[in-house]
């Protein structure tokens, strides 16, 4: 807002400065216009500074690329409800493939939010890379914690052929892969028209520790002898959890307030072992395939109670077993945030409350 003080000296100084500035500006502007034609400023919007082209500029995108993104956008629209989902993309992203993908998703009804960094629960990004196979391209898109990927073989006439099944991570929502041949998308192997649920290794990098700081915990720590079993430790998601040997309530009890237990199974491990084995793998596979819905939560309590010869002790063994089951669940497409893993460990037996060497796996479903 402009304020006028009536200071004439200052006013004259400003005028003189501006006259000089205008002279310089005018000269430069004149030269620039004469040389380059009537270039019109892009205004004071961000485009001018960043060189971001406004509007769709995906014309130069190859037909093969379009076919691949069309294919994956159809899968994305099955995982997320377009009319209720807003996807975030970085507003500086002028990549033509991303623009085409965003336009395609917007046409399907998704909300599109352009953010300054990587804000949002459904932040959208993609990776396109050549694989070790000749003429094969791997395309994957990440939407929040969900990853959708597929390999494609590039054909000579700017067309592609799907060269793998659709791999999904971070979701168990059933999707139909209905590949249909067209001029740019040639289906050569119909057996690849299906979805496979895999672990989201690309997104599962180490994250910050989330520590527990409840007053009860602080109090317990000060009361317990230092040479007893630990009272808390980090689970597979770097979230600090209580040792359930000392308490009856799960660290995640509040999460499960609105959930009802649907099923319970115990995965039994060998003595001093974290090896899952074929039988347990099959058990987990059946558990996920036949019972799990996408909004369900799985609670795990890894246990090791009794003497152990391992250096990692009961704590490492209990949480290691829970982590091993978590990995097996994630390899079937279960999202990490759907798994609540904790542990129960002590050098003595805990009675009937928990198994001595196993993981209690419970399925919880929302009441709402």
């Amino acid at each position, binding site marked *: *807002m*402009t304020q*006028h003080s009536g200071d004439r000296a200052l*006013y004259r100084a*400003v*005028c003189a400065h*501006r*006259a000089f500035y*205008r002279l310089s*500006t005018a000269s430069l502007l*004149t030269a620039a*216009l*004469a*040389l380059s*034609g*009537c270039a*019109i*400023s*892009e*205004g*004071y*919007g961000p485009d*001018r500074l960043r060189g971001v082209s*406004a*509007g*769709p500029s995906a014309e130069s995108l190859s037909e093969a690329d379009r076919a691949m993104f069309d294919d994956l956008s159809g899968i994305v629209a099955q995982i997320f409800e377009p*009319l209720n989902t*807003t996807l975030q993309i970085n*507003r500086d992203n002028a990549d033509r493939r991303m*623009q085409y993908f*965003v*336009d395609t998703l*917007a*046409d399907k*009804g998704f*909300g*599109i*939010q*352009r953010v*300054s*960094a*990587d*804000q*949002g629960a459904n*932040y959208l990004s993609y990776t396109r890379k050549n694989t070790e196979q000749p003429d094969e391209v791997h395309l994957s898109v990440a939407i929040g*914690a969900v990853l959708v990927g597929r390999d494609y073989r590039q054909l000579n006439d700017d067309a592609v052929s799907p060269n793998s099944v659709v791999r999904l991570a971070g979701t168990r929502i059933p999707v139909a892969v209905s590949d249909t041949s067209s001029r740019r998308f040639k289906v050569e192997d119909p057996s690849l028209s299906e979805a496979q649920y895999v672990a989201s290794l690309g*997104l*599962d*990098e180490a*994250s*910050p*520790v*989330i*520590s*527990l*700081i409840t*007053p009860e915990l602080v109090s317990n720590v000060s009361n317990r002898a230092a040479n007893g079993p630990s009272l808390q430790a980090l689970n597979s*998601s770097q979230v600090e959890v209580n040792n359930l040997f000392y308490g009856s309530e799960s660290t995640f009890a*509040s*999460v499960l307030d609105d959930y009802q237990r649907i099923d319970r199974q115990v995965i039994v491990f060998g003595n001093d072992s974290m090896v899952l084995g074929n039988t347990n793998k099959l058990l987990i596979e059946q558990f996920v395939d036949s019972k799990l819905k996408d909004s369900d939560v799985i609670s795990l309590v890894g246990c090791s109670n009794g003497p152990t010869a391992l250096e990692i002790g009961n704590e490492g063994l209990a949480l290691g077993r829970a982590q091993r089951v978590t990995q097996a669940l994630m390899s079937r497409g279960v999202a990490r945030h759907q798994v609540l893993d904790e542990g129960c460990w002590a050098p003595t037996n805990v009675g009937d409350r928990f198994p001595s060497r196993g993981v209690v796996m419970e399925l919880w479903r929302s009441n709402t």
Partner: protein
Amino acid sequence: MSFFPGFTKPASGVFLAIALSGCVAQSGGPGIGEGALLPRLAGNEEALKDISALERAHLQLIATNLVGTLVQIPEMRPATATLQFNKPESAYGNAVIRALEDAGFGMQMVSADQGQNFVSYSKRLSETESGLVTDYALAVGKIQLSREYVVDEDAVFPSSLLRISGTDYIADIELADNIFAEQGGDGNVFISGAQREGIPDPELKASTVDVRAFDQLPQDKRTLQETVFSDARQRYFENDAKRQAPELDNYVKHRRTVLIFDDNTTQMMGNANKRAVRLLVREFSDDDIMVIKACLDADGKDDASMNRAIRVEEELAGYGVPTEAAYIAPCARASYRHASDDSPTPVELVHYRPR
């Protein structure tokens, strides 16, 4: 007003003649290109071709003025609000949709008027005792904003207060009216302030702004649209932090994590930090609060820290934590950080539960 104020008309004419010799009958002169006004999603290029670059600049100023106000209304936080819109049929429509996009709203194209936050807008020309004025309106759901603007030579100025309806929260709103003064003027005066439509306000804060020739800034020195929106958002968060400081004595700490930003300026959180927030929010209940401690290096105001805190609060909002449940803690001196320090920067996030 001359294109080159401060020069005599013949001198200006010479400059213009030279300048225009390099081009053919384009819509020359001051103004902005079509690209600056065209929405990235469903833009209508045809609608922009019939107006001059100067008119486009005016529309951008008007859209910035209205949208810069909209983002300060609590119900309309860009981090959480997705707006529904139809493909624009007019230049003003393009300008509005583009400004909403740039303000950070989620934009969803619909075929009719679906959605709770459907965007509608209008432009009405009126002949009044003050001359021709144009009333520009923008409505998002039940929230409506409108203001009259008048064109004077190369500049456009507001000619009324900004009227707002559909919300009770207009006390903290600050209009970005400085963007009009930056055009310069010849003793132009305009009124600045916001009022609730149809409701007299005895405490109305309105002022008049005098615009003189020396207020004019070169195009590339004027306030960026992006800056208007980010300042408005930041002001909202700062006011919000002051307004709703919780009584922490009524809460106990439940969980704590420390997010690490790569340096003091970045807003990118990265997958690991985002995952930590997602896992932390998983245990969040209705009466809980989150306290964000981003400012550790000074007693007082620290813009970089505030931006980081806002970034984290926006992330929390993206996962469903309401604004009123997230609190940005004031600065507390913990360590000294030099301005040139680009080492990783922590933000502490503490989850509190009621006692």
